[in-house]
């Protein structure tokens, strides 16, 4: 059984109008029908451009956002059915690492207080000094850090404090929402390595949310690509990078420059045009059809593609009607100028 199993998850934020008499005039479909599963001890990476709902997905999994529909099962238990007290108790098994390490730490709390808060909350008896030192040691900070305050640390050190807090209760699952994107590039690798090292030592399961494809590739066993609230492709990390199947994934990966000018000049790039459509009014049919260079008349506009394993690609799942044809080269991407003049759906 998977440690984490998400079925048909939807998170819709109502759009309200009016001052005294509020009425709901629509909904932002931040997460709109996501299925995914993470096996114990593995890492699932979730990538997508900003605004695609990946952070909301992470929070909804931890029941930190109100879930509109669908289920999140953790170790076989449906989290939505748990009573508040049971859910609070359950939280010690699933923790979160945040994007902005400074914002995620209370500026008035010393590190010792930050790290003992989870212990206190879950009824463990003090003194906590020993455990705090142990945690600091685990994340590579000196024990003298305990008496200091968040603003006295560098970004990388703060993120280490954030990670120490997340592992304080020896959780099984950690949702890391952009754990390194706020850090200097030189520090990113250190924090990624720390996360990997901790995974091995503490047998953690990770859900890593990021927009940086290199980071996700490095840390993930499997990768899910998200677009406008839905997952368009799931595959083992190496397969996804070697052979992306969904047009969106193909476009994303082709945006990564190759550090060899000759190859870089010759390679074919698939360009996306336009912006991410509004999640309050997503396109009909395949959500990607408004920007897809492989779009085929009517079917892409009318029929919602389901996540399926295409013929000849076991282990990968993709939500595209034409995945096989795209993969075989039967369908070619429309070049940008032609597409630019084509009428828009």
């Amino acid at each position, binding site marked *: 059984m998977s440690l984490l199993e998400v079925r048909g998850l939807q998170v819709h934020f109502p759009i309200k109008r009016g001052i005294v008499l509020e009425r709901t005039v629509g909904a932002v479909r931040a997460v709109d029908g996501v299925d995914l599963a993470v096996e114990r001890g593995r890492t699932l990476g979730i990538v997508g451009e900003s605004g695609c709902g990946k952070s909301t997905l992470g*929070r909804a999994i*931890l029941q*930190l956002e109100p879930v509109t529909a669908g289920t999140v099962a953790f170790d076989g238990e449906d989290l939505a059915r748990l009573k508040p007290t049971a*859910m*609070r*108790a359950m*939280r*010690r098994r699933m*923790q*979160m690492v*945040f*994007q*902005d390490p*400074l*914002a*995620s*730490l*209370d*500026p*008035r*709390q*010393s590190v010792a*207080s930050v790290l003992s*808060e*989870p212990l206190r*909350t*879950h009824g463990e008896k003090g003194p906590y000094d020993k455990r705090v030192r142990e945690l600091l040691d685990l994340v590579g900070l000196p024990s003298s850090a305990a008496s200091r*305050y*968040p*603003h*006295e640390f560098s970004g990388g050190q703060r993120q280490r404090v*954030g990670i120490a*807090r997340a592992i304080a*209760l020896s959780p099984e699952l950690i949702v890391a929402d952009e754990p390194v994107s706020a850090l200097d590039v030189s520090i990113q690798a250190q924090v990624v390595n720390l996360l990997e090292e901790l995974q091995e030592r503490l047998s953690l399961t990770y859900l890593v949310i990021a927009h940086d494809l290199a980071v996700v590739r490095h840390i993930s066993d499997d990768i899910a690509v998200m677009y406008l609230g839905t997952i368009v492709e799931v595959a083992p990390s190496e397969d996804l990078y070697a052979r992306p199947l969904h047009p969106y994934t193909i476009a994303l990966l082709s945006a990564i420059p190759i550090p060899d000018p000759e190859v870089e000049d010759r390679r074919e790039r698939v360009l996306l045009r336009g912006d991410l459509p509004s999640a309050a009014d997503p396109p009909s049919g395949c959500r990607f059809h408004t920007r897809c260079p492989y779009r085929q008349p009517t079917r892409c506009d009318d029929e919602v593609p389901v996540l399926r394993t295409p013929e000849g690609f076991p282990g990968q799942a993709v939500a595209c009607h034409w995945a096989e044809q795209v993969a075989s080269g039967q369908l070619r991407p429309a070049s940008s100028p032609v597409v630019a003049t084509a009428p828009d759906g």
Partner: protein
Amino acid sequence: MSLTAGADLAAGSADSGATGEQAAGLYRDAFRRLRRSPTAIVGAALVALFVFVAVFAPLLAPYSPTAVDLTDIRPGVFPGPSAEHPLGLDQLGRDELSRIIYGARYSLLIGIVSLSLGAVVGLALGLLAGAFGGWVDGLVMRLVDIMLAVPSLLLAIGVAALLGPRLLSVMIAIAVVNVPIFARLLRGSMLAQRRSDYALAARSLGVTRGRIVLQHVFPNSLAPVIVQGTLALATAIIEAAGLAFLGLGSADPAIPEWGRMLAETNAFLASAPLLALWPGLAIVLSVMGFYLLGEALREALDPKLRR
């Protein structure tokens, strides 16, 4: 009266010292920055002078504020500054300097009492709205909107007129004006803090809502309230003077209240302009002290400068 006021101040600072252990980060930093700010030093010096004069008025004043010296008083003639009376005598032959010194007590008293009253009620409302949100927030804020819709001076005049010309009514009037300001400020600050990542982090740890609000959100929402408190003291002194000037202060003519002293010299402005200058100067300096200190505090507590 002023001694208890002084004790209140001392208790207040001792209080913040007790929580200082946890709060060290922000406030220690702010204090360090305050000590280097000329604005803060000038402001603090003026405030210190004002408080000192108010507390030790009986020791500092050369005469009683109500003692009358009629030796040199003739109709239409006001003896100016002299060796015995450095600031001269007022229209009833009372020592102006002593009255200014005693006046500080009333200004400070009115300021502190009205501020405390207004802040306590306002903060309670703000805490309610900020902690619960939803319809509680809506209800409290509409109430506050109603209070804000009435011009503050008009509101103060109304309250003073309703309760009669007493010192207490001035205090209540100014407190009422302060309530919506503090309520909105704390509520807004708390709403912002509630959406912060660290509040979310606490939730993800399983910390209960009540504890998140009381231990994380509320303490972190107080910085703008402290600044507002300092600025509100300045406003309270001006408003007290304004109400007294309009004849809505205490009816007791023996009370040396600056605004009222200003009003009483109105008729003699041509023959004794200095008598209007002294209380005016006292008001300006004390208000400026609190104002400068408040502005310096605002800068020192600005989280954007901390990164």
